[in-house]
């Protein structure tokens, strides 16, 4: 039986001839455990992730290796990146991108807030309305990109601005607390204190696993790859490519809304200046660090998850080291580049090793 890890390589095309399960081929016998590991797409970024965690863990053990910091790193910083990255990976693979997702993040909790305070919608329903906002925004993105034919980079910059403007206008540019009555309906999305402070991490892990399976083991995943790898060919094979893209925009919108609503509950703050471009860029960088091709056709959700851990570790680790915010940007930018260069070069070595 083919394991999940093996099928990642197959579906996404990460393995070369005989990679993973060259069923009884002589080559297979010579492939060491390390070789099999190195063939996996996620291998290089996993090495980078572990190295970073070791570095910060060993140099700042007393602060880095604590429960408080684990929550900071995994639930507060990593989970939002990982969740949004799921949506961006699917979109990048099928040849699109969503620039507006950070503003869906901004807008969704505002819909929830207005529904509760102005329309007295029950809190649980308002949470769902907030999440649905993301799905609807994703559909609108899909409509503009797929049906009206506007490139997604521009289309979603436009919808992003609109959502941002709506958020600022509706909230009069002022943050508000989450209505206290809603807190019990939203704690399962994540609020400070045990056990719910772990909820964002749990959401991220569960969603990553679900969508990893969707991408590697279902028709949806195959068609997403097909749409990004050979759009015309996918159409000629009779695949409804438009539907796939619509769907992935809606998934991405949902992820943005989920993170927005989660963050509102976690920080007890519905803030029209939350979100924005930063979460989107982090998610795209996580995706790319994790091996997703900017030009479409290939990528993995597990890789993006590791990419999110890398970014969160850098943010959190440098913060703990007491580096102030201004030079942190320099280090952060450099670290992203180093991670990417290492990733690209290791992948090149991996390809070279394969062709031997």
């Amino acid at each position, binding site marked *: 039986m*083919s394991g999940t890890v093996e099928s990642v390589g197959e*579906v996404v095309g990460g393995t070369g001839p005989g990679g993973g399960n*060259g069923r009884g081929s002589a080559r297979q016998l010579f492939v060491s455990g390390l070789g099999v590991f190195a063939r996996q797409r996620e291998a290089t970024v996993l090495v980078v992730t572990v190295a970073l965690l070791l570095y910060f863990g060993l140099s700042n053990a007393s602060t880095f290796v604590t429960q408080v910091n684990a929550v900071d790193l995994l639930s507060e910083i990593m989970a939002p990146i990982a969740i949004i990255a799921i949506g961006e990976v699917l979109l990048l693979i099928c040849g699109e991108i969503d620039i507006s997702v950070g503003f869906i993040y901004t807008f969704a909790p505002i819909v929830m807030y207005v529904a509760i305070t102005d329309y007295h919608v029950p809190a649980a329903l308002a949470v769902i309305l907030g999440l649905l906002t993301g799905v609807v925004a994703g559909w609108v993105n899909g409509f503009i990109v797929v049906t009206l034919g506007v490139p997604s980079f521009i289309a979603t910059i436009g919808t992003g601005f609109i959502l941002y403007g709506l958020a600022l206008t509706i909230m009069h540019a002022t943050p508000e607390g989450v209505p206290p009555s809603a807190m019990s309906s939203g704690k399962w999305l994540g609020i400070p204190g045990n056990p719910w402070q772990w909820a964002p991490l749990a959401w991220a892990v569960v969603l990553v696993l679900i969508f990893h*399976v969707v991408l590697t083991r279902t028709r949806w995943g195959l068609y997403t790859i*097909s749409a990004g790898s050979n759009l015309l060919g996918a159409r*000629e094979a009779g695949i409804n490519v438009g539907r796939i893209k619509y769907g992935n925009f809606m998934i991405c919108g949902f992820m943005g809304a989920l993170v927005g609503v989660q963050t509102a509950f976690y920080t007890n703050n519905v803030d029209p200046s939350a979100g924005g471009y930063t979460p989107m860029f982090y998610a795209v960088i996580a995706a790319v660090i994790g091996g997703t091709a900017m030009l479409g056709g290939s990528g993995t959700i597990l890789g993006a998850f590791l990419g999110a851990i890398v970014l969160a570790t850098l943010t959190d680790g440098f913060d703990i080291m007491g580096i102030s915010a201004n030079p942190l940007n320099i280090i952060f930018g450099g670290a992203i580049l180093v991670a990417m260069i290492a990733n690209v070069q290791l992948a090149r070595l991996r390809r070279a090793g394969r062709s031997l």
Partner: protein
Amino acid sequence: MTTQEQVPLAPGGPGPLPDEVLRAEHISKHFGAVTALRDVTLRLNRGEVLGLIGDNGAGKSTLLKILCGFQQPDGGRILLNGEEVTLKSVMHARSLGIDVVYQDLALVNELSVYHNMFLNREEVRWPLLSNRLMRRIARDHLDEMGVNIPSVNVPVASLSGGQRQAIAVARAVFGNAKVLLLDEPLAAMGAKEVAMIIDLIEDLKRRGDVSIIIIAHNYGQVLEICDRVNLLQHGEITLDKLSQDTSVQELNDIVIAEYRRALDERQRSA
């Protein structure tokens, strides 16, 4: 315009012959003021390999797109096994057993061979793909067709042009195609690859249940593979001969004559 005496067989005969699998009658197609196909009548016998040749712009691609259901003709009719059919879409034509292999092959490079073989007709145990089953069926099918590839698990991107062509053809046959339309299957291929595809087509011929129309430029290759050739010029079939009754020389002469005529016209108008 090429003269009629170059047409030894009258293709637009009274009715379909019993062994005719596909027949296109008086097909015409216009794009605005441009006439791509004037009046094309063409037949394909069961188990036959028909070569469709002609200059760039003669209408080969348009004819192919009509026969595979991608475009609808402005006039004329198509008969499949003697019954008139309206091909509404590529999918519809495919469901009737007419499948096309385009030059770009419609393969997804990033996906494995077996996922490509099953593209859009995957075996699924909802919601998951039955990868093991698909892998086995794909391997058996390719073995049966004599298509040699290292493994069905490798991404299509790692295969050669000929192997990719073979996969695309095998996929169409696998999808139960009875009429196979191949668009330039030998374009940009080395001798070994060409031999491989010719082998594959010979195999299909032996099976006898697949009829093939090949669009090609290289007359030598066409006469090698095909039982019969049709020459398309200015949206009409101007020659219909068995391969054994014609030669590269004859086909070349016709085309060169056409160049000469075009050249004359240019010089006259200049």
